[in-house]
């Protein structure tokens, strides 16, 4: 489903609803409400994906990485849930004291697809994480989401995160979204 293509741009009203949904999701994660995030935002049939991209010459004709290739994230629902559950064990020493993370979301563009309840959303994102005394890391990239409209809410069905850096300048990328 990652390859479902966008069709028309959404209306102003729909754009407002989708962008507010994105901000609400980010706020939830920033507040460490991972369980609520999983329940309210994540669809049962999610695939959360962060491929590994190499620096290759322009003439290199090898295809872009697909969902079966090496990926930093390639999680179904049960796997996302495991990551969430780990955060509630009380023994994640790195998160005690807790770190602070901000999601800076920009360049949101939302489109219809050929399925009435599915929306394709492109976002630029910066994740800025502060830990301990002076530890600050920053990850910049883009997100391609597929949202399903259920009633007046949205659920996250597909998310592909592509980070711009080849080398991750951080201890890990264990954060959500």
């Amino acid at each position, binding site marked *: 489903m990652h390859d479902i293509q966008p069709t028309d741009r959404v209306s102003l009203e729909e754009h407002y609803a989708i962008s507010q949904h994105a901000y609400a999701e980010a706020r939830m994660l920033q507040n460490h409400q991972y369980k609520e995030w999983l329940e309210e935002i994540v669809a049962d049939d999610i695939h959360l994906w*962060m491929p*590994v991209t*190499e*620096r*290759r*010459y322009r003439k*290199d004709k090898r295809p872009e990485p697909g969902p*079966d290739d*090496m*990926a*930093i*994230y*390639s*999680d179904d629902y049960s*796997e996302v849930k*495991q*990551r969430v*559950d*780990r955060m509630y*064990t*009380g*023994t*994640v*020493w*790195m998160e005690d004291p807790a770190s602070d993370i901000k999601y800076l979301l920009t360049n949101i563009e939302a489109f219809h697809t050929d399925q009435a309840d599915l929306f394709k959303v492109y976002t630029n994102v910066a994740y800025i994480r502060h830990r301990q005394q002076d530890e600050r890391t920053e990850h910049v990239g883009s997100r391609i989401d597929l949202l399903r409209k259920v009633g007046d809410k949205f659920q996250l069905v597909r998310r592909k995160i592509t980070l711009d850096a*080849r*080398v*991750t*300048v*951080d*201890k*890990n*990328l*264990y954060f959500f979204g």
Partner: protein
Amino acid sequence: MIDSTELVDTKNSTQAKKIFGDQDVYEQELERIFGRCWLFLAHECMLEKTGDFITTTMAEDPVVVTRAKDGSINAFINSCSHRGNRVCTADSGNSKSFVCNYHGWVFGSDGSLVDVPLEETCYHGDIDKSKFGLPKIRVESYRGFVFGCFDDDAPSLNDYLGDWGWYLDTFMVGAGEGMELVGPPMKSTLKCNWKVPAENFVGDAYHVGWTHAAALEVLGGELAMLAGNTAEMPYDQLGLQVTTRHGHGFGVIRQAAASIHVKREGFDKFNQEMIPKVAEKLGQPRADLFDGHWNCTTFPSCSFLYGTNIFKVWHPRGPNEIEVWSYVLVHKSMDDATKKEVVKQAVRSFGTAGTLESDDGDNMVNATSINKGAQARKNRMSSTMAQGHEGPHPDYPGIVGSSFVGETSYRGFYRFYQEIMNADSWQAIHEKDDEWDDMFENKDFWKNKLAGDK
């Protein structure tokens, strides 16, 4: 020159805390360890066709590894022989030649200089191209794993691995068609000394129950019982630790190969099918280890977990930083679906966002940064656990420790570290071949233990 007997006390199993952050120690390591040991470069499967290349580093030296026309694998320093610019700027690819971006010198995939712009008009034909090839690095393979070495006097890769090769063969020869690596590697930086993760992988099953308590609790599996170190366990029957002549070593937890993998049907089935084959090819002692979970380091800085199957290189970037490159090990004869699942599960636990990987980073960074303090760095660290509970074993080469939770392979790692840091040459190291294990004094440990067990 720093006297490494001050850095490592093999008798009391202590190390100076300054080994993690001291610039002079690091400079000596670059010359005496990274300049003389075999360092992992690539797996042959990444260089199948003529012209295939990958770029990597040997310590801080950038290196290009290629498959040349004659089928050989070559490695050379990625630095132009004209004015020193980087010659290859991609991670991997296929190319007949490498053209330097600065003035356009062209190098073949064997590193030789093949073309120089304005050769006739401005060099006046007066340049001997054969003298300006890229500096070549010794290359040898072990079971498809390609290593490079800067030192012509170093032993062959086979001899460098020594008894460690005997153990590697358990899965590289014993099971199916051998192993290969899946990339491209994940890359991340960690502000720690390279030895912290290297020692952790060589012999630290001790930290698993505590550092990784959260992940073990959530993932379940055989190792979940380690979480929090509260369960009563007969540790001395659950596994071994081993160290060898050149510091390579490992710990193994019996019958726990895929324990970190949540989805593992294909992997478990493969392992069960292979046990009798390993026994047939290599004998029972290695078959008994085959379905264990192994934590390993090939000295100095190439580590992997067999069973979890993550494969890591700790590339030093100064005394206080490394770049971590993570690949996944798979058996060539696994079916595609099993390979994919193994890759996914390995990355889920020990990739850049891994559930266990994320537990380790703080420990490694803090063990490095804390000891920069003028007073802290004067103190020493210990690796004394189960000292004396180790010795030569009738079935297993090297020095074997009684439990997978122990520090035998730490001691062996730092024993060789001390030796090579002080040795003037490989010749001086060879001269000690018969006495390298003198520090493990309890020669009858296994004789007595095995008699007692009966």
